């Protein structure tokens, strides 16, 4: 059973459209990370959120951590083909340096 549920599993959109990926759990996390992984490469850290209700922006990417620290979302505005990849959320619980990963969302942005 996956501790973190990501949705949707696959997302295919046209360049210029917006998209949102969700990461949900029944567990509380002390922090949550989002990674992007391109084919044949390792995951690259995009952001870490640690405070309930926190919103972080990274250019066209907006990350939100739920008030109860059980869920998170990633919103991409005006998606570009370079945004294509596997997006992974991963949570860390209190006093734990291991991460629980979601199953990932494969995003394809068509030119």
């Amino acid at each position: 059973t996956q501790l973190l549920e990501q949705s949707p599993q696959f997302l295919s959109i046209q360049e210029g459209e917006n998209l949102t990926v969700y990461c949900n759990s029944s567990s509380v996390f002390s922090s949550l990370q989002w990674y992007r992984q391109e084919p044949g490469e390792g995951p690259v850290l995009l952001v870490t959120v640690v405070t309930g209700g926190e919103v972080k922006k990274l250019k066209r990417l907006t990350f939100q951590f739920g008030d109860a620290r059980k869920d998170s979302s990633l919103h991409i505005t005006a998606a570009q083909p370079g945004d294509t990849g596997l997006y992974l959320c991963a949570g860390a619980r209190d006093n734990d340096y291991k991460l629980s990963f979601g199953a990932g969302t494969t995003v394809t942005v068509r030119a």
Partner: protein
Amino acid sequence: DAMVIQNPRYQVTQFGKPVTLSCSQTLNHNVMYWYQQKSSQAPKLLFHYYDKDFNNEADTPDNFQSRRPNTSFCFLDIRSPGLGDAAMYLCATSTGLAGLAQYFGPGTRLTVL
């Protein structure tokens, strides 16, 4: 630049022939992790070292072993690779402070013939 390096990037082995994958880091992080990742799935933790302390996940097969001779290097040994072991193997590091992010290497793609 501080980083996590994995060698080789691609490894081909034969069924049953032992193989060793290498990871090195310049981040001076306390913890090094090995993950197995199959196509478009989440990485699956195999084991990790906190300094010299080895921590195995309960469902990691005995076929997988690891060595960490010093802070910078960690090796993954697959004693008798099977076809089901073909995957991307990812090394990651972290400071070991609870809740902080992990930093991944580029991975080694293992093919078993």
